[in-house]
């Protein structure tokens, strides 16, 4: 509360009768910021009950402007001064000045119970300010609800008038205007980057090969010179038969658009099988291309794999990137931390590795989807075997990686794999590459928010589920953070 020097400038006594007519407000005096939570609750509850109430925390509530001159407000407009009595307000100058002013008015105008102390904590009786010790304080310390009930009874008893501008709806309106966070929202374009990287053009034709009479192949895609996907007796590829030597005896060439979109019974596979194959071929082509760039593979659950950056793969500490619109940055893709090893009873280096796994989709746009991962090793190269150990370390490090950490590592990794070029070429046949743009698909939002006052949540504030699928298997997470065991 702004300090008030003294109660010396009280209005002349002869005006008391007129002033009483204008005195219809409840003024809540309190220690700011210590007792703000209670005071705001009280003011809003009183307003909800229809009482016109003033306090410095609820300015403009009910459309009533808070007076700049607090002294005048208390002197001319206040029906009751509610003094929030606590260990804080009992010694705080601002609150005590308001209290003294109120007591002065009470004495001068011979008002009964103009000042009502509301006791909210365990301030001992002996320590209570001498000015109000003899007054009957309403006790809120055991329960705010029972304290409020007594206060409402007292206000009714003393015929304090209500005001139609103060209603539950007015409380909602005030709340929405000042606390709901709506002021953070702004109507402005907000461009979001994504993990979708456009496929510039797919080949116009796809081949379905059938094994030659004497050919043997165990079906492993890695054994072949070009990406291929086996479905039963058929092998789908963007590479013609000649790219596979003598392996295949017969081939169909199908226009890709026809394969993906028609339901032509004459085709050896269904449109859905063709779509699955194309996605599979893109994943394979990606894995081969990043393998060529020197990124080792790490198997993931559900027969997926990721490629990761290992120590020595690049020279600098950080990898830079720059998008065509000038958005740029740089990040490390391998790092280490010295940690205490309980097993070996000494400090050891623990490396983290950024990795990428790929998927693809053809609708609503044709894109390669790249997802970020974090792996760990002791030597900067060989990833730990234990999924549980990896998961624990992953959660620990991941809890400090936010939007920009993941975004910039993704862009830096893609830029490095493309060797700074605008495209990554994925070979799919001896004479054919699929080009992937290194500029991700952008999504445009027309609503944004001001994040200058935002802060990152702490672990124990996290209520949305973790983004890692593995977390769903956690018993506690499944309970939605509920404390019901």
């Amino acid at each position, binding site marked *: 509360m702004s300090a008030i020097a003294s109660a010396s400038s009280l209005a002349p006594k002869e005006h008391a009768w007129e002033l009483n007519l204008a005195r219809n407000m409840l003024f809540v005096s309190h220690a700011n910021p210590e007792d703000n939570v209670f005071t705001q609750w009280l003011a809003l509850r009183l307003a909800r009950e229809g009482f016109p109430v003033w306090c410095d925390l609820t300015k403009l509530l009910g459309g009533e402007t808070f007076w700049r001159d607090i002294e005048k407000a208390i002197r001319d407009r206040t029906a009751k001064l509610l003094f929030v009595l606590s260990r804080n307000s009992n010694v705080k100058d601002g609150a005590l000045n308001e209290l003294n002013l109120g007591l002065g008015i009470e004495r001068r105008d011979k008002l009964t119970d103009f000042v009502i102390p509301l006791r909210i904590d365990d301030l001992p009786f002996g320590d209570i300010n001498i000015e109000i010790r003899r007054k009957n304080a309403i006790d809120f310390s*055991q329960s705010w*609800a*029972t304290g409020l009930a007594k206060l409402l009874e007292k206000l009714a008893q003393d015929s304090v008038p209500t005001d139609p501008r103060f209603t539950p709806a007015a409380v909602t309106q005030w709340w929405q205007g000042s*606390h709901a966070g709506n002021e953070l929202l702004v109507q402005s374009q907000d461009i979001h*980057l994504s993990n979708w990287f456009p496929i510039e053009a797919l080949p116009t034709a796809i081949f379905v090969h059938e094994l030659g009479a004497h050919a043997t192949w165990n079906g492993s895609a890695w054994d072949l010179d070009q990406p291929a996907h086996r479905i039963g007796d058929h092998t789908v590829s963007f590479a013609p038969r000649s790219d596979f030597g003598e392996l295949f005896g017969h081939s169909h060439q199908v226009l890709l658009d026809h394969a993906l979109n028609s339901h032509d019974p004459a085709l050896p596979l269904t449109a859905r099988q063709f779509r699955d194959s194309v996605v599979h071929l893109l994943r394979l082509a990606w894995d081969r291309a990043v393998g060529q760039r020197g990124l080792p593979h790490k198997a993931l659950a559900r027969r997926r794999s990721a490629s990761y950056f290992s120590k020595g793969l690049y020279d600098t500490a950080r990898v830079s990137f720059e998008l065509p619109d000038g958005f740029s940055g740089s990040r490390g893709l391998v790092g280490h931390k010295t940690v205490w090893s309980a097993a070996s009873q000494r400090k050891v280096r623990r490396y983290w590795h950024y990795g990428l796994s790929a998927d693809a989709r053809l609708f*609503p746009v044709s894109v390669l989807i790249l997802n970020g991962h974090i792996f760990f090793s002791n030597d900067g190269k060989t990833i730990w075997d234990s999924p549980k150990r990896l998961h624990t370390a992953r959660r620990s490090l991941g809890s400090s990686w*936010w939007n920009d950490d993941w975004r910039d590592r993704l862009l830096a990794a893609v830029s490095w794999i493309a060797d700074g070029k605008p495209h990554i070429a994925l070979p799919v046949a001896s004479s054919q590459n699929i080009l992937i743009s290194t500029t991700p698909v952008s999504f445009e939002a027309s609503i944004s928010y001001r994040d200058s006052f935002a802060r990152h949540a702490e672990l124990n504030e996290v209520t949305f589920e973790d*983004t890692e699928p593995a977390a769903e298997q956690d018993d506690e997470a499944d309970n939605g*953070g509920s404390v*019901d065991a």
Partner: protein
Amino acid sequence: MPELRYIKEPGLLFRHDQAVEDPRDGLTLFGPLDEGKPYGIRWGLIGPEDSLQRVERWVSGINRRVVDSEPARYGRKQSPSARGPDLARPPYPGFHAAFEIPWSNKPVQRLTVPEKELAKVAFLDDPHQRVFNTVNAYSERIIDCLRREEARPDVWCVAIPEYVYLNCRQRSYVETSERVKAEARLTRSEAKAIAAAPLLFEEENKLAKPYEYELNFHHQLKARLLSHNAPTQIIRETTIAHRDFLDSKGEPTRKLDGMESAIAWTISTAAFYKSGGRPWKLGAARPGVCYVGLVFKQDEKHRDPRTACCAAQMFLDSGDGVVFKGAVGPWYRGKRGLFHLSREAATEVIRMCIDSYADRFDGEPPDEVFIHGRVRFEDDEWAGFLDGAGGKTRVVGVRIRDDEDLKVFRRSAFPILRGHWFRIGDRMASLWTRGFVPRLRSYPGLEVPNPLFIDVCRGEADIETVVRDVLALTKLNYNSCVFADGAPVTLKFAKAVGEILTAGPLDGTVPPLPFKHYI
């Protein structure tokens, strides 16, 4: 450039017909939705004496404002001012102030489980007997009390010491030195054989009983009380009195400093709901609409591995749902998470929902039913839903799952705003139910939020309406008191409900029961 559309945060309705976005704000400002229901928390309390006293002290304490202790940083340093104003943690004003009814620290029934008895069963070396007998120590006393006493609590607070929580779970391990030898035990196959064909000797049959139940105190207790109308709130004593339990360094074994008000909000809301109150409902309800979440759980104890239990959870505009147990059958299709009903079973389960809705609305069936599931529906199954819905009700099948394919990144340190969605044609969308929340000035999650992938896979509905509904349904979790969940309530508890329904031998004995019996 693809467009991200935005849905304004749905409001929740409280007393005085007022709507705000955060349940904690609504309760603090206006109180819960229903006035005078219940009149107070009529609660029962059961547990060992020390735990009972802790719960009573805690209940006594939450009638006053609960102030969060400053989180001790356990090895990390951060000044209090660095945390800034804690808008993500709306203060807890006291139970009576928030819910407008008292919660007396004197329960209407107070049942003591002797510590010696509990410790003896909770450390048994046979895990099935351990969990079964530990649940017995509580459930038998509750059932006996309900039989004898006229004063029936609306909700039972089940106070458990930490060793009950630790020892009575699926993969619990009891130290060899602490184990209590079970007097007699059966092998899995012996127990299975007796369950399939009970013997003449009552003693053997009794001995086989514990093996019919799931190794989970929470699920087993709820399952065994389903037919006794006794909603429970399980309270770990380390949750409500974490500073009473210190490790060798003198620090609390559970790091719950700074969580006190969140714990008070959560337990209070759950207890209020389980006592018969509705804390809030959706601010913009759509009349004539209900939402059904499908629940499946493979019955691992059954010889046929395809055997699964199914259930439907029906919600209107509040989180006060009803759970209908459907038929047990060969619904599991071998692939992870793939369950499909037969036409008859689908008809039966949806008919129960429609009938229950009609009972509530003067015999009128709903105009629309949205069935939420994690997988697509098969033709036969879908035909069954349509049969069960009858001619007056339109049925829409919606598949909802986490979308791990799409990440979007703002050009700042903070992520996408919750409520954004990306329309993929007329029937599919990605919706960010997780993201930055302006009210909290924060993103209450980790890393980069994943959207939900929503697919109107059967029936006809406007995709925007479906997306709006799913976003709103993330705010109806009465088992907690947070701004919102990532998943809609129709799916949030599917796993837990399924596990309770398969936690023991319940075939054909479970009537439609309010959702509160399952959470």
